[in-house]
């Protein structure tokens, strides 16, 4: 198609595992041995691994495409190939126009330079001209909210200020193709929202965005289409919500088929007294039952359950050890069933249950299952957020309108700014 901005065709990328010669002392013997054995040694081939295999997809102008996949699926490798940091072992990549990567937004920073100097430095590294930077300087600083500290060396910045300045520069480059990797986790909630808005503005401005994130809800907000990667191969290309569903499903199917693990969590269900259930009311009792099976003997285990919200943010976790259950030992082909009961003081929303089998007293996981179960909470209308803190209004006092116009106006606007409070009195 004429308006294809980015085309990845049959791309493979090979890496070598382990350490390779970083000093001549290692190289010389290695060269000698390969000389005598002739050709490539088998050992070398065993140490190679393919981070990407035959990856192909294309992106149209103005499109936002997400890349989804577990750890080690090859997401970052793809971005590194797209920026030109690395070259593919096979296949071709064609990008039309200026590529800007919001990958390591602070990589170009120099600790000893001031914020102002770093804006110029980083802007130039990301491909802006000095004139462009000068023109947008105030905008960049205002976006980061660092007007007061711009002449302070960045080594005195907090990590949040540091990252915000980095993102702000990167966000003002006006690229043809913007690559974003897991950076929206910087800054507070307001800054993250500003970032998403900025990305949407970049897309609306006709730029193309490639977005890599584990925060799937954010990814779904920005991208219409996504690519699902699994162990370096493209599993699916399609509308983002379908790809996200396929991604979750793949995780569960893998588990059932996985015969290599010595011990395995086989089933996680949520229920109440009457049986399995996925919808709960705030304040009710949530039952979680976990089944596990051992293929070989495992001593000293502890079972951890964790509840995360839809952004994968941990809300709560507990384990058999902390609940006084002691160490769990399973012999081969023995099964385990644990049932937990939780007071569900959560506000309304969707939550996931993660389950882990750890070695007792350490965090070494034998088995981990993320998003093993999903449940919904119907919360009370008066509380929003993650937790239900059971709010009660104990006083609502509006002062007498005696001291002039100014005061009474302020009193009027105060209930309006917190609608919940005014609502509960009517």
């Amino acid at each position, binding site marked *: 198609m004429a308006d294809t901005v980015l085309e990845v065709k049959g791309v493979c990328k090979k*890496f070598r595992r382990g350490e*390779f*010669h*970083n*000093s*001549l*002392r290692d*190289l010389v013997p290695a060269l000698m041995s390969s000389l005598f054995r002739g050709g490539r040694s088998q050992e070398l081939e065993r140490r190679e691994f393919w981070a990407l295999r035959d990856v192909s997809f294309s992106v149209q102008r103005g499109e936002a495409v997400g890349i989804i996949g577990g750890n080690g699926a090859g997401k970052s490798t793809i971005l*590194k190939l797209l*920026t*030109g*940091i*690395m*070259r593919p072992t096979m296949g071709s990549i064609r990008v039309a126009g200026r*590529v800007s*990567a919001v*990958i*390591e937004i602070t*990589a*170009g920073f*120099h600790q*000893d*330079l001031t914020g102002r*100097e770093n804006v*110029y*430095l980083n802007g*130039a*590294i*990301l*491909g802006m*001209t*000095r004139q462009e930077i000068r023109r947008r300087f105030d905008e960049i600083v205002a976006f980061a909210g660092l007007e007061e500290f711009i002449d302070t*060396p960045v080594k005195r910045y907090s990590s949040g200020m540091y990252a915000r300045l980095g993102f702000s520069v990167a966000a003002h480059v006006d690229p043809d193709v913007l690559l974003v990797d897991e950076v929206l986790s910087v800054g507070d909630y307001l800054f993250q929202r500003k970032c998403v808005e900025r990305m949407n503005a970049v897309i609306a401005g006709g730029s193309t965005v490639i977005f890599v994130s584990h925060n799937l809800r954010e990814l779904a907000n920005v991208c219409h289409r996504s690519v699902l990667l699994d162990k370096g191969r493209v599993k699916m290309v399609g509308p983002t919500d379908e790809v996200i569903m396929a991604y979750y499903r793949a995780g569960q199917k893998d588990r059932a088929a996985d015969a290599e693990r010595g011990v395995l969590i086989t089933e996680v269900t949520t229920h109440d007294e009457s049986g399995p259930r996925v919808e709960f009311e705030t304040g009710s009792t949530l039952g979680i039952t976990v089944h596990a099976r051992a293929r070989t003997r495992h001593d000293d285990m502890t079972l951890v359950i964790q509840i995360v919200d839809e952004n994968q943010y941990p809300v709560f976790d507990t384990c058999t050890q902390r609940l006084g259950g002691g160490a769990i030992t399973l012999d081969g082909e023995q099964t385990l069933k644990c049932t937990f009961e939780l007071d569900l003081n959560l506000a309304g929303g969707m939550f996931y249950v993660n389950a882990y089998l750890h070695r007792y007293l350490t965090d070494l996981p034998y088995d981990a299952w993320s998003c093993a179960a999903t449940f919904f909470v119907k919360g009370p209308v008066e509380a929003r957020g993650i937790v239900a803190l059971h709010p009660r209004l104990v006083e609502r006092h509006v002062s007498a309108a005696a001291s002039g116009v100014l005061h009474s106006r302020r009193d009027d606007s105060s209930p309006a700014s917190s609608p919940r409070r005014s609502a509960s009195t009517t």
Partner: protein
Amino acid sequence: MLDALRELVAHRELLYVITWREIRVKYKQSVMGMLWAILMPLVIVAAGFIVRFAFSRISGKPLAMSDLTSVAVKAAPWAFFVAAIRFGTNCLVANSSLVTKIYVPRLIFPISAVLSQLFDLVIAGVVISVIMLVTRTGVSLQLLWLPLLLGSLILLATALAIMFSAASLFFRDVKYIVEVLLTFAIFFTPVLYDSSVFGSRAPLLLANPVSPLLEGLASAVVLHQCPSLPWVSYSVACSALLFVAALGAFRKVEPYFAESI
């Protein structure tokens, strides 16, 4: 080769900013700041004076003023040459976060390393001009050799910086080898003495491509004589060839930088 140069021209702003960063960072948070740029060449020139003074005492030959100025004229470019290579060798490893995380033409790093040292040479040049004014060295048409001689020296330093920077990215040993070579190179280069000291063996010394350039500088600037044409052309040819070779080699291994660093 042309591609590489074209890419550099396209990224000249970045080259400028990175060079500016190197200069800026070097003198940040130091009490004397930019004064260091003047002090370092002064120290080298002073060392040269002492050596020449000792020479003349031992050999019994009287010390001419032109001897002292020619030491100054040779010592400052030599200091630049050594610093440029030392700094250039480490530049890619020092910028590893940029090499592995953001794409920029990597040639920028060794070149800006050389350019930032050039800044010090310019300042040293001012100091030397003052010395020459005080010693009434005078000027002549031979000064027109200056651009060619200095340009060739810069080209040679850049070529070596490019080569060693890539080599030390793959093999950290290179850094130590270069360090040793640079420490002892002053004995094989006519900086504190003249190649004529060696009589018929002088060509051995002049085979070091830096030597004819330094001697040429001294003769053009201090003695107002035309530099030895065959030797200067030899050096210029060496510099140009090395530069082309370095550029080619660098381009060839550049794709493997990010995964090998």
